[in-house]
């Protein structure tokens, strides 16, 4: 398959692997920001191909994982209403709130549907004029344009029985928060290629300067990751900081300007709570004034209780790259993909789920040694 096979080529992978070994003289901790990259790393065993000096830590870039518990609870509350058709991307359905998940709401009679594009909700809304279709608009800059488009189209077409429950997060403020943390060990970043495809990478340039780190915009195929790591290691070894673009076949410095304009029109920047991490200033999006009437939280006032995370879950430390999944006492015992304590065990992009799914025996075998 074009654009895929050539980025999974074993011979090319071996060359990059050797180049990384040659370039590495000291220990380096590198964070891949995006859950999709974590997924590729564990799925293809890329961490095993690296010299022991290089440690990859997994960042907060899993939209399912960072959606706060209170927001999940609000989603469950809205989805239970008989006058609502609640639509979501598939992997949000299994994320546990304080009481159950969207799958259990569905099993108990709620009309919960998986959609593949937020625009599908507008068709459902047109087909069911007597009910309100609520879309769970989560994700990073990557999903923001499509979600913005759904709201913009609804406005333009005069569709009133449609609303969005918004929990959008932005990546650069999270990188800044991780670097500013006293626990931080990260020396270089692989930035999420698809976030940058939308937003470009200008916003990362001041971050690289401020924290004196290399940031390499990186794709999602095995060779993308190996090349991203190589570029990052070379910059680290040379003592250079700045932004490099490994994913040039997709990402331009200025991003997708049409998408950015639409996002700016429909959304505005706001403070956002990240599950397991806490509130980060100016790290999220909410509907702008002109579109506020599409906000499901305005349409359906919901209870504002503070939800409590299970005490044993360390997903916050995992999302910040401070701990690895297998360092959690609940990992693989009290917490599994079937019975997750935290969202990092739910989403296929979550670090805990990726480790459990793809690497469990390896990490368990390594545990005593570390």
């Amino acid at each position: 398959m074009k654009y895929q096979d050539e980025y999974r080529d074993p011979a090319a992978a071996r060359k990059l692997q050797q180049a990384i070994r040659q370039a590495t003289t000291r220990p380096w901790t590198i964070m891949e920001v995006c859950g999709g990259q974590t997924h590729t790393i564990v799925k293809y065993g890329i961490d095993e191909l690296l010299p022991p000096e290089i440690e990859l830590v997994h960042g907060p870039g899993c939209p399912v994982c960072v959606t706060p518990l209170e927001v999940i609870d609000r989603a469950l509350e809205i989805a239970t209403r008989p006058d609502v058709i609640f639509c979501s991307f598939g992997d949000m359905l299994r994320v546990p709130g304080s009481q159950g998940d969207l799958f259990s709401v569905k099993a108990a009679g709620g009309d919960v549907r998986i959609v593949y594009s937020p625009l599908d909700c507008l068709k459902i809304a047109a087909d069911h004029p007597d009910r309100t279709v609520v879309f769970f608009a989560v994700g990073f800059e990557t999903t923001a344009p499509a979600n913005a488009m759904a709201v913009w189209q609804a406005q333009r077409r005069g569709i009133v029985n449609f609303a969005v429950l918004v929990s959008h997060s932005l990546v650069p403020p999270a990188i800044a928060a991780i670097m500013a943390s006293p626990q931080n060990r990260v020396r270089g970043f692989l930035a999420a290629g698809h976030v940058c495809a939308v937003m470009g990478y200008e916003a990362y340039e001041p971050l690289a300067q401020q924290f004196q780190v290399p940031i390499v915009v990186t794709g999602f195929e095995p060779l993308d990751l190996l090349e991203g790591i190589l570029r990052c290691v070379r910059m680290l070894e040379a003592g250079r900081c700045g932004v490099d673009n490994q994913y040039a076949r997709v990402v331009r410095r200025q991003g997708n300007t049409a998408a950015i304009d639409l996002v700016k029109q429909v959304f505005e920047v706001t403070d956002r709570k990240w599950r397991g991490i806490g509130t980060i200033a100016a790290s999220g999006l909410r509907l702008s004034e002109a579109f506020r009437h599409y906000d499901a939280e305005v349409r359906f006032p919901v209870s504002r209780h503070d939800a409590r995370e299970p005490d044993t879950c360390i997903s916050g430390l995992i999302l910040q790259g401070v701990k690895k999944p297998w360092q959690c006492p609940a990992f693989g015992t009290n917490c599994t993909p079937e019975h997750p304590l935290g969202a990092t065990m739910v989403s296929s992009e979550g670090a805990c789920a990726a480790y459990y799914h793809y690497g469990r025996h390896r990490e368990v075998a390594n545990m005593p040694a570390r």
Partner: protein
Amino acid sequence: MNSPQDEQPVIALVHCPVPLSNQQHVLLGHGSGGKMSAELIRGMFLPELGNDILNALEDQATFELAHLGLETTGQGAAAAFPPGARLAFTTDAYVVKPLFFPGGDIGKLAVHGTVNDLAVGGARPLYLSAAFILEEGLPLELLRRIVGSMREACEAAGVQLVAGDTKVVDRGKGDQVFITTSGIGLVPPGRNLSIARAQPGDRILVSGTIGDHGMTIMSLREGLEFETSLQSDTAPLHDLAEQMLTACPNIRCMRDPTRGGVASALNELAEAARVGIKIDEAQLPVRDEVRAACELLGLDPLYVANEGKLIAVVPAADAERLLAVVRSHPLGRDARLLGEVVDDHPGMVVMRSLVGGQRVVSMLAGEQLPRIC
């Protein structure tokens, strides 16, 4: 000749009811063929209904005719059975939407699925029963097409449908048609296939491309329709299985990787035989269309359903010969040896990735969910 009864392994999986987590309702994941299904079986059904035969969790139950009070050497009906032969018995329920899809329909599935569950146990399928749950208002013409399709499938598989039942439920209380078929077959003397028999050193064969059926259905799902030339692989495997077992009587076991896909079938095998399984990603036969659709949706073809494929575990010495036999059969042209049984990591399936790393191929937790981005 082995005494089938002596070697019949019984896997002690029951007597310790696993708590059914904290779920109050049946969830869709309980029907996924993965871990949640296993949990339902082990936490709910086996503690109440388990017995030595059911507990083995094979695709089909087999029992000695002697258990039925039939003497295989005596007079009457039982005299038709050769000494040492066993009966195989299985049942399966079919729900699929849409009812008709490229390559097949619910009627074909209902016959093939049960025939295949018998065939992968080494049984020659003989008789089927079918129970229909019909929704009030279903066009009779639709039912006629389904039944006609079942007749064709029975003829092709050489089985007779000899018992049936029909129930009609109120409009809105069912989804057009649900079909349950049961089947019995005869396991010839000396054949003793069981997933618990896999041994380190054995090779693993898959009879063709994986994920075709599941992705065909997925491409027709509401809200997800995409253009594809894919067809379901639904097919009766009795002839392929028979030829394989004739050419290579040492085959340890076979499975048809339906719901839950190849990954779930291999995990069940690894767990039942307490062996490790190592497979090679480069050897996975996956059609380009299936691969592309899976990439698009963030799904893994290893977990996608098949309806006309089987997996066989075979001693290494026979593997290449068996591969040639399978490839010469119309249903096995794309067969591959995709891995081996190993001593390491018992109960676990590990795959060598295309770029040389390794990963565990675990059992599916619930349903495979398309990813956000």
